[in-house]
């Protein structure tokens, strides 16, 4: 039994709105699993159901071999979490906040250890209201670690943080993982998912539309190279698809995106085709496919829309 999380047919309906529409997830112990999707995709609803804070409309959830209905108290002692937005008590200091959270768990690191984990030693006597966004978020994660959890849930842990604070938080997560912890996190940042996650489920409109390692997902595009170009006038997508070595073609508002596994084979015929149509090239760029491309390919939308 090495499943940390297993859910089947998860559905959540708010009135007429289907936030989650039948989700299956398997998270292995010791891995970092990412739920990737744009705002409103159902990520927070999903993670809060898995955290036992929301009841699903339908579906089964098993966490660490137990269910929320039967074993809530025992599970609470074994998991840790940071909600997407929690304002901790403004008037309490970092140390007081950590001591409070530590007191709620039967076992776990000392307050000094938690301060060290969150790199918050220098801020131990500062009130919560005076902390920066990154410090607040590190404190939130340190609170999540107060019970020495086997499983850590993080809902958009770095949203709104500056690059340096994000890296600080990533270090915290990687450190937890390196000591055998399991992580489920949601994010709409590609770089975060690539950096932290062993497995990624791409979620959109409450459905899982792709699953795999970051490498597998990028490979699933059928090409690891992306050609992004624009011309004056328009081109026929079907004709582009007929060109040699082309895997996929997509027309965008301001140009075309072609994927391929053989960049060197595609460029000459593509340029010849464009010249033959008498449409002057206004932009041409190529890059290795990223998760962003996977997402756009799958949904036709940008992640951060």
């Amino acid at each position, binding site marked *: 039994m090495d499943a940390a999380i297993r859910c089947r047919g998860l559905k959540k309906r708010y009135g007429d709105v289907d936030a989650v529409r039948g989700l299956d997830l398997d998270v292995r112990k010791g891995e970092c699993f990412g739920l990737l999707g744009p705002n409103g995709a159902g990520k927070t609803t999903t993670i809060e159901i898995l*955290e*036992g*804070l*929301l009841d699903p409309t339908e579906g089964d959830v098993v966490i660490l071999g137990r269910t929320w209905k039967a074993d809530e*108290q025992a599970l*609470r*002692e074994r998991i840790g*979490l940071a*909600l997407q*937005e*929690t*304002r*901790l*008590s*403004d*008037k*309490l200091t970092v140390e*007081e906040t950590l*001591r*409070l*959270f*530590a*007191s*709620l*768990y*039967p*076992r*776990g*690191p*000392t*307050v*000094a*250890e938690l301060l060290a984990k969150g790199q918050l030693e220098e801020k131990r006597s500062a*009130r919560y209201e005076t902390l920066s966004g990154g410090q607040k978020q590190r404190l939130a994660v340190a*609170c999540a670690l*107060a*019970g020495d959890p086997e499983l850590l849930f993080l809902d958009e842990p770095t949203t709104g943080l500056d690059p340096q604070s994000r890296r600080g938080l990533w270090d915290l997560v990687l450190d937890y993982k390196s000591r055998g912890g399991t992580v489920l996190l949601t994010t709409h940042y590609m770089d975060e998912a690539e950096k932290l996650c062993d497995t990624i489920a791409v979620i959109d409109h409450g459905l899982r539309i792709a699953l795999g390692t970051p490498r597998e997902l990028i490979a699933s595009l059928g090409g690891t190279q992306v050609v992004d170009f624009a011309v004056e006038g328009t081109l026929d997508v079907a004709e582009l698809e007929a060109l040699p070595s082309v895997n996929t073609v997509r027309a965008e508002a301001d140009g075309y995106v072609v994927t391929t596994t053989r960049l060197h084979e595609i460029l000459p015929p593509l340029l010849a085709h464009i010249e033959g149509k008498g449409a002057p090239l206004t932009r041409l760029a190529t890059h290795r496919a990223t998760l962003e491309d996977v997402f756009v390919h799958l949904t036709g939308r940008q992640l951060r829309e």
Partner: protein
Amino acid sequence: MSERRPHALTQLVLARLRSFYREPGVLFWSFGFPLVLAVALGIAFRNRPAEPPRVAIEDGPMAADVDAKLQASGAFHAAILPHDRASVALRTDKVSLVIVPGDPPTYRYDSTRPDSRLARALVDDALQRANGRQDEFRPQEELITEPGARYIDFLIPGLIGIGLMQSGLWGVGYVIVEMRTKKLMKRFVATPMKKSDFLLAFVLMRGIFLVVEIPVLLLFARFVFGVPIFGSVALLGAVAVLGSLTFAGLGLLVGSRAQNIQTASGLINLASMPMFIGSGTFFASARFPEVVQPFLAALPLTALNDALRAIMLDGAGVAQIAPKLGILAGWGVVCFALALKWFRWR
């Protein structure tokens, strides 16, 4: 991990206390405001020596005669005014009564004004005596201004009561809703915290602050205004604790479901307004019509104020205030029960 794990309930209570005393605004409303109110009302309604009634004599042939008679009695501020100005003076409260000289004279006044009725009686007495009426007897008078019978004595127990109500409703109800809107409660529910500890922390916090809140007001009242405590201080403390628990329960109930601070404020005002006015804090609830008296008597703040007043001013013991304590405890039990039944944790 050699460090002993901190105790959950202790930490929850400490968190409540710290959040409370580190908020200067809250401190003022809890400790300063009742003192300011006591001083302001104590000064505004201080006992003053009775002032002679102000009356006007309408100008005319016999005005000087009436004026001389009133001056002779020495008990009035009287002035001779033309008809129009006398009417204006009466209407604008400058005088309590207008005397129209004649045989017999006419007294013009508003019978709903206590000062006018008093002036009428005194003027009538003075004029009748001046015209030769003999008193049947001369009564002996015993004047009192004892502590315990003044307005400030009436006020202080009420201020304690209303303070307990406000702290319970705002300190528990409002804070709980605030924690809910900030998702802080959800965060705690996501830990193995005992929910009873979370709620108990609010109640204990109220109990601890009581120990500071009430002595401050009582000592202030004692040394500034000489307000006495005729009954048992221990009983007074016990009743305050009961009142505090009851209003913590009401606060919990008010905060049990509200999802935002506006709703919470509305509910708190809705709950406290009838008691603010009707529970005999600033004036006796007996002033309200007979029909609403049973309703007012059933309010928790009325019961608390009556009990506190009975202990402080009448030296009442447990037996005399038992019915009031029953009402108070009943409210407490019902509020706690409903709050726990309805409480929205997530």
